[in-house]
């Protein structure tokens, strides 16, 4: 018989407002095995924790039930509290009477009644709890960063600085990501390349960083501290170790009509190419979709001109397998496709461009050499219309995204400002729903655009853009002026919403990391654990977790790195003790459990058992490796004899909860 203490938390008024905490602690005091029951304003406060510890000692408690907020919030806290008082931390159960009771009910009577039942269920469970001791597993002291944009680079640099080896896997031929395509950065207007390329070089030169460009993660196995990752190194048909990046091949390649993705298809590149001058690694890559040699077997120009002999048409994809202790997802974002927004005539006129395309058109290294020219006729535009929130903040429907893409207001202000600065003869209109500028020096920046640079900010949505006689007829409403506007524009720039990179979803599946409905990675806790995924050992960096600007990204990248460093600096990890275990006396050895185990934690041995009349029976029985088992419980249901059970969530415990709830 356990001696159980019950501690009911008011959570200020969060619980106490809809749950009569006194009634709950009184009711639970009458439950079998409960020797102490009380309520307190903030159980998680130091005073509350002290109270729990004192009670454990005074009453010799063998079990503790805390009726409070979600166990996802403070289970760990209370476990630690009890451990300090000498009670096994797994003798603690939390009854969630805040998120799943007080916050969802308005009627105090109902809330109180439910809280008592939830408390009873927790008490019933604690009766069957057994002290558990966590095992240990070693940590592979190497990290994997998936994605080589600014987020990935910064994370890798920080981890490497702390002395741990780190691999960056980047699907493109070069690291750098979206930031390489950006011209200037807000609100300081310094050149993106100037601040990014040194970091890229740092990454390349850091002894602890190993860049696996033009590579993709193929599969992930294992668990925190012990991941095994298979990485596909795509064939680039150029020997990375030999290529000097001289670029001769990219000049001689006869296949000149390949849309240049670095410039978003605004110009062309060759079939063998280096994405841009500062690429890291600065190695040429053959695009197999366009290379005549690879497609027809005839050409071989690049091979002839390459003095280093780096060209290898026979190169194959290579799969490499590596061990990591931690994985950081930094898969970044993309602007959404404009297919569904043809009211802005994106598909009809080349002069309707997205903001990222506009970045390229303004960039000195871009297709126009930094001169703003209309893509259609190469003339200088005089009237520009910027449309905000294209695909952002769309509630419902399939057209856009429900969220705010966060960066558009600022980069549009930047674009408008830069346009007006370079070409004061232009008229610049910005149509917006709201202008959101919550950031250091952000609002000042925006106001400069309006006040100093004379950008016309108009609150209202653009209804339609119609290309007509070389002009773009923009129909819009001015909400403040209460009138319909018609503007004959030369160019229209769409602030396309951003969305997570398409590779994130399959990656999340491999990592068993959860995602939200928009395919952004879910953080373990939105406030308290913003850079960790709920899956232990998987961390989040940059826009894959949610829309971010560069400063936020870099900050989060550093935070993720700090978490990784914290993990890798441990020699041993404490395992989850809530693992499966097999009762050998009942095990049939049928292998059903082994088949459903996602971690390969179950093996079989032949073991001798005492049979009747002093005989020995040899039976095949399952054994669980507690360091590998993650405690999902799939095996417990696959097992027909019930030999397999899960510590901490045993059949008996769950059924006791069921009984208490249904009573």
């Amino acid at each position, binding site marked *: 018989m356990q001696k159980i203490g019950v501690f009911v938390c008011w959570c200020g008024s969060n619980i106490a407002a809809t749950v009569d905490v006194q009634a709950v602690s009184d009711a639970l005091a009458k439950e079998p095995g409960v020797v102490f029951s009380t309520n307190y304003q903030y159980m998680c406060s130091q005073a509350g924790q002290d109270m729990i510890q004192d009670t454990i000692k005074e009453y010799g408690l063998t079990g503790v039930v805390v009726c409070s907020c*979600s*166990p*996802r919030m403070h289970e760990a806290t209370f476990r630690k509290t009890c451990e300090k008082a000498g009670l096994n931390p797994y003798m603690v159960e939390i009854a*969630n009477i*805040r*998120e*799943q*009771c007080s*916050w*969802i*009910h*308005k009627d105090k009577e*109902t*809330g109180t*009644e*439910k809280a008592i*039942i*939830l408390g009873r*269920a927790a008490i019933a469970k604690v009766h069957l709890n057994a002290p558990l001791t966590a095992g240990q597993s070693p940590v592979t002291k190497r990290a994997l960063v998936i994605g080589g944009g600014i987020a990935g680079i910064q994370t890798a640099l920080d981890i490497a600085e702390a002395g741990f080896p780190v691999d960056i896997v980047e699907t493109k031929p070069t690291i750098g990501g979206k930031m390489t395509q950006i011209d200037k950065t807000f609100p300081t207007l310094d050149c993106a390349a100037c601040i990014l390329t040194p970091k890229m070089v740092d990454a390349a030169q850091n002894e602890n960083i190993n860049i696996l460009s033009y590579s993709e993660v193929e599969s992930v196995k294992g668990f925190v501290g012990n991941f095994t990752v298979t990485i596909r190194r795509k064939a680039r048909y150029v020997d990375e170790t030999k290529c000097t990046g001289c670029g001769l091949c990219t000049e001689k390649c006869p296949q000149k009509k390949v849309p240049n993705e670095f410039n978003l298809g605004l110009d062309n590149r060759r079939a063998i190419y280096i994405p841009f001058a500062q690429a890291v690694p600065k190695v040429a890559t053959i695009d197999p979709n366009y290379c005549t040699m690879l497609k027809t077997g005839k050409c071989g120009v690049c091979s002839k001109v390459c003095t280093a002999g780096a060209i290898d048409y026979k190169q194959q994809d290579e799969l490499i397998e590596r061990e990591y202790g931690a994985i950081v997802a930094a898969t970044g974002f993309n602007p959404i496709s404009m297919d569904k927004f043809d009211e802005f005539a994106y598909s009809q006129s080349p002069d309707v461009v997205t903001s990222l395309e506009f970045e390229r058109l303004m960039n000195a290294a871009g297709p126009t050499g930094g001169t703003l020219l209309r893509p259609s006729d190469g003339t200088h535009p005089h009237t520009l219309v910027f449309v905000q929130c294209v695909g952002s903040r769309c509630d419902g429907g399939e057209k856009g995204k429900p969220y705010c893409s966060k960066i558009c207001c600022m980069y549009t202000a930047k674009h408008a400002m830069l346009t007006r600065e370079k070409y004061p003869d232009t008229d610049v209109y910005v149509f917006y729903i709201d202008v959101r500028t919550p950031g250091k020096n952000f609002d000042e920046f925006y106001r400069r655009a309006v006040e100093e640079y004379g950008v016309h900010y108009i609150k209202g949505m653009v209804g339609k853009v119609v290309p007509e006689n070389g002009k773009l007829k923009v129909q819009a409403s001015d909400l403040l002026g209460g009138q319909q506007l018609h503007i004959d524009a030369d160019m229209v720039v769409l602030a396309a919403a951003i969305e997570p990179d398409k590779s994130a979803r399959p990656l*999340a*599946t491999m990592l*068993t990391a*959860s*995602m*939200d*409905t928009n395919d952004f990675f*879910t953080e373990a806790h939105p406030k308290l654990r913003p850079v960790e995924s*709920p*899956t232990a050992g998987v961390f989040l960096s940059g826009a894959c977790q949610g829309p971010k600007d560069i400063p936020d990204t870099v900050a989060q990248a550093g935070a993720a790195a700090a978490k990784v460093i914290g993990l890798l600096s441990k020699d041993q990890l404490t395992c989850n003790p*809530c693992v499966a275990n097999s009762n050998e006396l009942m095990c049939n050895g049928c292998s059903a459990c082994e088949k*459903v185990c*996602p971690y390969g934690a179950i093996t079989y041995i032949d073991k001798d058992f005492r049979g009747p009349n002093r005989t020995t029976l040899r039976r095949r029985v399952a054994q669980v490796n507690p360091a590998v088992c*993650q*405690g*999902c*419980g*799939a095996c*417990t*249901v*696959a097992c027909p004899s019930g030999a397999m059970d*899960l510590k901490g*969530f045993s*059949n008996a415990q*769950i*059924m006791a*909860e*069921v*009984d208490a*709830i*249904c*009573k």
Partner: protein
Amino acid sequence: MQVNQEFKPTIVAFCCNWCSYAGADLSGTNRLQYPANVKIIRIPCSCRLNPMFILRAFQRGADGVILCGCHPGDCHYTTGNYYARRRMTLLFSMLDFLGIERERTRVEWVSAAEGAKFAATMNEFVETVTKLGENKRLEDLRCKS
């Protein structure tokens, strides 16, 4: 069908720790209301749900049982909910085969971000079970005195 105003069904919701329990928390955080008849039991993964637990719940007086887990493909343990999906499909089909109201059992995938879906699902499920009335076909009268 006439809805019995008095009848408040007992609903047991088994929620996987990683998605649906968090989703339930989120609906709390967002103060989304659903009836107090719903009581949640936390399990590590939807694949932990043994059919015995469901029958046990009905035996002890539950009128409806719902399992919530991560969306297929999003299981924290990679594949758990796929197994749960097969098991529950077959179990529910069997209960239906025995003539037990199929509407009393349900599986719903609720992610950690779907607080609203959780609340909506519970509201809807409670309504369905309330319409069905008391569980008579899978009851244990010993537990109802």
